């Protein structure tokens, strides 16, 4: 779809890019406040231990130390992500549950003193058995990591849609497989950091590198006991998030308490090692699947079990375990699906949400199994997918409605774009080609806490001089380009050039916005922005219509010019008034059309400052079954990828040589940004497929908590990537737009797995596909 747009769909340069290119853009560490104190955390060296005693006297006595706080000094309020699983205390009360669990925080005149004070805090521990795997945590007689969660079960899901057993009985082929993945780290380049300031007006201002200012505001208010209007969260530029920055951190809360206690600004920052310790990134997943098909390739049933190794706290984990099941409902017609999901507590850092939340490894195994089914039935993998794929208007067995779905266009685009027919089955030994598909939500249908709240609100103010507009939004620009997208949507809605829109974002004083997660901002905040823009335009045109004495329906604004339909209208009085008001200025309006500037100035003169608002929350969505809230969304993006790889049989080394990637984003708001999200997704998926694994020793300590030892893709690891943007036109999206940020990662891992299988014949059941793992598998395969 290519609508008749002036701004939407263009390749406008990002609003933030020039300042980011010169070093002028400010991140938390670049913003200093007078009188700052430095904060530091005491974190547990034990993965599991009772705390018998904490003595802070030596730390308190150290010159330069201003405050030391432990669980005794803060309210005993439990928090977390989902209210159904508030299982975290800011500081350990009587037990630590992972290496890195927070015990105390110190504020001092400088960081060195704060760190020294942390070392002087004496804690008496009584070690407890350490549970590092699902097997250990669920073993008979294993101690419970949380007393309120028997047998270390964080969450359990049982769902069945249709009649799976009956369907299997009718199938010609039943395929079974399993998969095991490792914990991934978010590896955003800017470590989390914050500064808290307590004013004499009773307002706590927290500057934080977060994806979710609203949720941080809410958590800080709840834990400190301040009310929401006494807590302001400000997000400056943020150096990436990808999910792990989507909740309040212990440093957000510690700095807040220390600022309240000392009355001085308190800065706290994670080191890179602490980023790994805090984690909240991708879970380790164990999946088992049984898939039934007819001999013509029709998919009939899926029986799916997922077990998530979750770490010490719930974080986003309930949502993760639901997503791991629900995101297999599409993009293929699958009439019968059963899901058994389990999330288990262990004595490791808590896992949470990361790009493609919960769905990535389930997708990897499912798509791998589809390739095996295709082979057993003598079908091309693409033919099997085309046969089963959903189309616009289809609803999955778990009630996800595909209000637009360019799945066919994506599949055909990667088939043609990769030269599939010329390559599949015709490549030399060691070379392989594989494909996979996927889909993802365009924003979670419900907030994290149960509420009828709007998911976002927007204010757009016309500049009083008429020169443009300013958008005020609490949404979170974290690098994905939301400021630019909202400015483009506002420009399109108001009818002015993109350059005339300024945007102020990431501040809870600007309203409500649930934040940058679940690929929600373009669709949801975009809706609210469009509504506010439409309203502002109507306000201006109402004044203009009165002034001109014509019906408002005859007026419109496009590209900064007032469009008047019907008979010519004399606007000389307005122009003359404007020119007289700006005597001596060099940029007087001219030409035979009235400008936005003149109209907006007139509207201000008649009505005062013009502020229009917009808001959005999704309509009631999805099914009534337990867990239906996870996976429902106003719209779904979908994608297909073809990967081409080479495998070195001597070393097990895999090289991804080429990715052909198609994604249906409904309507690109900014074409360059859509491609950029697709390319970034490929890189994160490639890292997870080939290298990324957070490793632990037997005591639960991370072995590779640095970007030197934890390998994320460098520029040299990246294949040539061809991006094809598909635009199906989403009826529930602003100007037809829906997600790209997370759906685009879905096919990457399975496309690589299928290409490796094509090259080697190996069905690999474990990521990352390190040379060692691949070499050993090749050796076993050869011997077999």
């Amino acid at each position, binding site marked *: 779809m290519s609508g008749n747009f002036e701004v939407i769909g263009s390749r406008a340069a990002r609003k933030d890019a020039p300042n980011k290119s010169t070093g002028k853009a400010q991140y938390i560490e670049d913003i200093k406040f007078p009188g700052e104190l430095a904060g530091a955390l005491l974190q547990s060296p034990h993965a599991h231990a009772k705390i018998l005693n904490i003595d802070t006297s030596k730390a308190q006595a150290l010159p330069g130390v201003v405050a030391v706080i432990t669980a005794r000094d803060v309210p005993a309020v439990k928090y977390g992500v989902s209210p159904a699983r508030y299982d975290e205390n800011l500081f350990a009360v009587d037990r630590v549950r992972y290496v890195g669990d927070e015990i105390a925080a110190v504020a001092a005149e400088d960081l060195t003193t704060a760190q020294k004070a942390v070392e002087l805090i004496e804690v008496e521990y009584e070690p407890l058995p350490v549970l590092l795997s699902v097997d250990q945590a669920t073993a008979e007689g294993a101690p419970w990591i949380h007393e309120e969660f028997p047998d270390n079960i964080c969450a359990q899901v049982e769902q069945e849609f249709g009649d799976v057993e009956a369907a299997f009985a009718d199938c010609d082929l039943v395929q079974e497989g399993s998969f095991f993945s490792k914990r991934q780290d978010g590896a955003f380049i800017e470590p989390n950091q914050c500064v808290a300031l307590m004013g004499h007006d009773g307002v706590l201002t927290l500057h934080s590198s977060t994806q979710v200012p609203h949720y941080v505001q809410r958590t800080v208010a709840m834990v400190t006991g301040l009310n929401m209007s006494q807590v302001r969260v400000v997000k400056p*530029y943020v*150096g*990436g998030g990808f999910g792990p920055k989507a909740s309040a951190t212990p440093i957000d809360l510690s700095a807040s308490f220390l600022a309240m206690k000392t009355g001085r600004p308190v800065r706290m920052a994670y080191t890179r090692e602490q980023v790994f310790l805090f984690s909240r990134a991708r879970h380790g997943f164990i999946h088992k699947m049984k898939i039934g098909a007819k001999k013509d390739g029709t998919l009939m049933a899926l029986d799916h079990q997922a077990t998530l190794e979750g770490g010490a706290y719930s974080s986003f984990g309930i949502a993760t375990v639901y997503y791991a099941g629900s995101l297999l409902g599409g993009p293929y017609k699958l009439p019968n699906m059963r899901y058994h999901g389990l999330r288990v507590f262990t004595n490791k850092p808590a896992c949470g949400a990361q790009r493609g939340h919960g769905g990535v490894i389930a997708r990897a195994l499912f798509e791998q199994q589809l390739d095996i089914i295709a082979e057993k039935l003598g079908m091309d993998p693409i033919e099997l997918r085309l046969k089963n794929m959903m189309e616009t208007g289809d609803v999955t067995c778990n009630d996800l409605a595909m209000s637009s779905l360019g799945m066919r266009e994506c599949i055909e685009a990667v088939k043609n774009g990769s030269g599939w027919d010329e390559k599949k089955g015709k490549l030399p030994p060691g070379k392989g080609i594989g494909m996979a598909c996927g889909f993802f939500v365009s924003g979670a249908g419900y907030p994290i806490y149960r509420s009828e709240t709007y998911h976002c609100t927007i204010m757009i103010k016309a500049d009083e001089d008429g020169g443009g507009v300013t958008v005020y939004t609490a949404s979170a620009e974290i*690098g994905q380009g939301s400021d630019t997208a909202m400015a483009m949507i506002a420009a399109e809605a108001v009818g002015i050039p993109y350059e005339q829109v300024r945007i102020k974002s990431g501040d809870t004083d600007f309203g409500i916005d649930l934040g940058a997660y679940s690929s929600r901002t373009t669709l949801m905040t975009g809706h609210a922005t469009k509504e506010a823009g439409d309203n502002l335009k109507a306000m201006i045109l109402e004044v203009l219509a009165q002034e001109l004495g014509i019906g408002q329906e005859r007026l419109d604004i496009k590209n900064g010019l007032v469009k008047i339909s019907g008979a010519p209208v004399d606007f000389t009085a307005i122009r003359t008034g404007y020119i007289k008001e700006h005597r001596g200025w060099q940029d007087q309006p001219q030409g035979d059309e009235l400008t936005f500037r003149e109209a907006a100035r007139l509207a201000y003169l008649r009505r005062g400052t013009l502020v229009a608002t917009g808001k959005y929350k999704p309509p009631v969505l999805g099914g009534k079954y337990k867990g239906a809230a996870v996976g429902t969304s106003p719209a779904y993006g979908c994608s297909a990828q073809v990967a081409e790889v080479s495998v070195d049989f001597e070393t097990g080394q895999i090289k991804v040589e080429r990715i052909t990637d198609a994604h249906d984003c409904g309507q690109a708001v900014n074409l360059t940004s859509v*491609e950029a999200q697709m390319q970034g997704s490929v890189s994160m998926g490639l890292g997870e497929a080939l290298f990324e694994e957070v490793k632990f020793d037997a005591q639960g300590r991370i072995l590779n908590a640095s970007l*030197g030892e934890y390998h994320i893709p*460098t520029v040299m690891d990246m294949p040539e990537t061809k991006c094809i943007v598909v635009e199906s036109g989403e009826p529930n999206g602003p100007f037809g737009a829906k997600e790209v940020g997370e759906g685009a990662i879905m096919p990457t891992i399975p496309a690589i797995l299928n290409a490796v299988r094509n090259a080697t014949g190996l069905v690999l059941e474990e990521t990352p596909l390190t040379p060692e793992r691949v070499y050993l598998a090749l050796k076993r395969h050869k011997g077999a």
Partner: protein
Amino acid sequence: MSKQAITLTVNGVQRQALVEPNQTLTSLLRDELGLTGTKHGCGVGDCGCCTVILDGETVNSCLVLAMQAQGREITTIEGLAKGTELHPLQQAFVEAGAIQCGFCTPGMILSAKALLDHTPQPTRAEITKGLSGNLCRCTGYEKIVEAVQDAAGKMSEA
């Protein structure tokens, strides 16, 4: 050991500073000279976002002691634009969409600048080698490589 006075040239201007013996060049630039465009990402030379150009060669400024900068010439990201006019590399990064979160950008652009200073018309392989010490988690690097190619083309025409 107490603080020592050093003199160095930063972005063409001679500067003096009192530095601690264990202070890094990153800290000198950011905390003493107010050049916060140099980012502090890992502190151990893994991520490359603190990259600056020291006597014509890129270094991770977190791995250089401030005292080692005595008498030497440093280019930081603040030294590229002329007034409000962006350097061709900066312009190319903006236009190609090579910037997302922007935290790696200053280091990435400086690595690209050092590369083009030595190799004005680099091949794709030379570009990827030249940028291999700078991690980016957002972009997948494709548009960064394109930006460097675009800038190299434009700079050779100029």
